[in-house]
């Protein structure tokens, strides 16, 4: 009997929309009709308005249907979807869907295509090619490749990855560590989660290469506690890698040893800050450390440590495989390569887009995003998480580029974009920024610990019409103090969303206008 190959995603966003129920319904319907299916749990392609997206393998390539709900399953069978035939939910050949066709997927090359925990799938889609090349290179040559690629830290700070690695390589020590910052706490971001759930081996490979490059034999993935699915998949993948000679002693017959484990975080946003993360990994409260010394010199347990974001590390394999130049040829200016951009919030079409730097917000919001979900005007977007500035419509033509964003006092950050329609009250969002800072501040420095609460109070006064002129000045002054006086980005960047909201949307604060 012929068996038909069907793909149903196991990504947690797909699961959150009922992928598991769709799977069960398809299984029982197939059984009832005596049709044999081979069901593969792939990752999500990142088109979340179409999840649950079911794919079928056909001679012409994979054909997609979505969004599939359990109620659609019977009619899908009636129309013989398992042969790739037409149905009202047909999306055609998956690779031909415009949203996917218009991307440049490098870091995300396999995401949605493969079974996340199939080593065979991973290797047959270029997996571990970068590691095999790296094993033939000297440490310095690996670091050079990363430096030349122009890769900058994708967690938000955009520090050149190669320079960080060089510092750790140069630091003499009997013990070094690779720490993956997987404490993805920024609202509007999910690209780390998608890599970990949908292509965990690429992160593992990137971390092994990092270990080879700087001479570290121990890696930790510090994973936020809100991601239980990612934790289960990572642990499964690590075990498979260990059993197949990719982790542990004598990796692939070499002299190199590298061990990797996942440490579950405990719901503190501040632990996404690298020194706070290290404190937490050491079993302490996540208080931010003074810098210097840099973690690259004195990091985990005082030893030289590479702390990189998930996406930075997951991009290493393709750089080693295809070469620094291949990667650096994407992008613009000093923003080389691609960025996995996350479209979130009030948009018709939300999801994951990996694109070379240089695409504008407008293209993302309207060409990819299709405008707001509610059909109203998009009033503002927040880029780069809760510490990122709000951008009004007249800034939508800004290209996604670290420097161009910096010029308008905004940040690209981790590439998360949250859209708001015109029903949103920007003063509420500004107040929330302070509230969030007050809840999540580690409390070590005064501007952040105290400033956040005072900020909420000042906004309340402005909104209540109390001494508005004076209080706007106080708010701006407080912002300055926090920007310049805080130890880390938590207090140092909270004023970005606040002041941008005040500058661009003074009416929401009950002000006629305010100086900009």
């Amino acid at each position, binding site marked *: 009997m012929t068996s038909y190959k069907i793909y149903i995603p196991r990504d947690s966003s797909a699961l*959150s929309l009922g992928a598991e129920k769709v799977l069960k319904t398809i299984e029982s319907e197939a059984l009832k009709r005596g049709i044999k299916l081979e069901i593969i749990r792939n990752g999500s392609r990142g088109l979340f308005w179409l999840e649950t997206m079911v794919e079928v393998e056909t001679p012409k390539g994979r054909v997609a249907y979505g969004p599939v709900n359990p109620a659609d399953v019977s009619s899908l069978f009636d129309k013989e979807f398992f042969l790739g035939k037409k149905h009202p939910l047909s999306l055609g050949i998956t690779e031909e869907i415009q949203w996917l066709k218009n991307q440049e997927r490098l870091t995300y090359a396999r995401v949605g295509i493969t079974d996340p925990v199939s080593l065979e799938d991973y290797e047959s889609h270029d997996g571990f090619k970068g590691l095999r090349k790296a094993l033939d290179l000297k440490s310095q040559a690996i670091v050079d490749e990363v430096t030349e690629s122009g890769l900058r830290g994708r967690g938000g700070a955009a520090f050149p990855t190669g320079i960080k690695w060089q510092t750790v390589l140069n630091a003499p020590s009997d013990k070094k560590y690779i720490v993956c910052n997987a404490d*993805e706490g920024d609202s509007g971001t999910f690209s780390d989660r998608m890599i970990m759930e949908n292509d965990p081996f690429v992160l593992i490979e990137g971390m092994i290469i990092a270990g080879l490059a700087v001479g570290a034999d121990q890696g930790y993935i510090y994973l936020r506690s809100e991601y239980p699915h990612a934790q289960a998949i990572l642990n499964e993948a690590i075990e498979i890698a260990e059993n197949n000679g990719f982790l542990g002693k004598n990796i692939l017959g070499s002299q190199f040893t590298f061990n990797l484990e996942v*440490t*579950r975080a405990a719901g503190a946003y501040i632990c996404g800050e690298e020194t706070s993360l290290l404190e937490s990994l050491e*079993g302490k409260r996540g208080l931010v450390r003074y810098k210097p010394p840099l973690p690259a010199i004195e990091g985990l347990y005082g030893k030289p440590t590479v702390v990189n974001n998930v996406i930075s590390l997951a991009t290493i394999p393709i750089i080693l495989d295809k070469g620094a130049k291949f990667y650096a040829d994407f992008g613009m200016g000093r923003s080389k390569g691609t960025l996995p951009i996350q479209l979130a919030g009030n948009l018709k079409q939300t999801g994951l887009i990996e694109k070379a730097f240089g695409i504008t917000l407008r293209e993302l919001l309207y060409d990819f995003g299709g405008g707001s979900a509610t059909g109203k005007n998009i009033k503002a977007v927040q880029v780069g998480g809760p510490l990122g500035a709000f951008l009004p419509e007249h800034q939508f033509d800004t290209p996604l580029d670290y420097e161009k964003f910096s010029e308008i006092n905004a940040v690209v950050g981790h590439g*998360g974009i949250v859209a708001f329609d015109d029903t*949103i009250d920007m003063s509420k969002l500004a107040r929330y920024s302070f509230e969030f800072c007050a809840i999540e501040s580690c409390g070590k420095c005064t501007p952040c610990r105290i400033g956040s609460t005072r900020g909420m109070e000042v906004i309340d006064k402005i909104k209540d019409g109390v001494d508005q002129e004076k209080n706007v000045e106080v708010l701006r002054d407080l912002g300055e103090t926090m920007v310049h006086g805080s130890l880390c980005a938590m207090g140092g960047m909270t004023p970005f969303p606040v002041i941008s909201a005040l500058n661009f949307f003074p009416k929401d604060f009950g002000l006629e206008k305010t100086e900009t």
Partner: protein
Amino acid sequence: MLAENKIEKIEQHLNLLKDKPGALLPLMHAIQDDLGYIPEESYGPISKALRLSVAEVHGFVTFYHHFRTKPAGKHILQICRAESCQSMGSENIESYCKEKLGIDYHETTKDQSITLEPVYCLGNCACSPAVMIDDEVVGRVDKEKIDELIEEAKK
């Protein structure tokens, strides 16, 4: 006084994890996963085994939002309060849940079935508004979906 079997369980986790570098974090997870919370009575034995002061252990537990020192209800319902969910009307979901359950955040229903907690991003921002019930994320929730979840949890 803490029940004998709880003390025993805490001792077991301690024996398993006390020599691990950075032991406190995995240890607290192990205890909370097992008992549902971290009893304050455990601070003494933990501080002794890890050579910390009781204040350090207390400081650690109370620093992290995830850890609780009192038992929770049978299910934990977390509502995302972050920006992306706000853009899709999570405030209505928050007030609806509070009203329907008759509790505020960090509280448990009288029948001990549900504890309500805020959460700041579940990584499900493409499917806002989102909530999490125990370990399962639920996307694009509306009042009907909340009704379903609560009904299921109260069974």
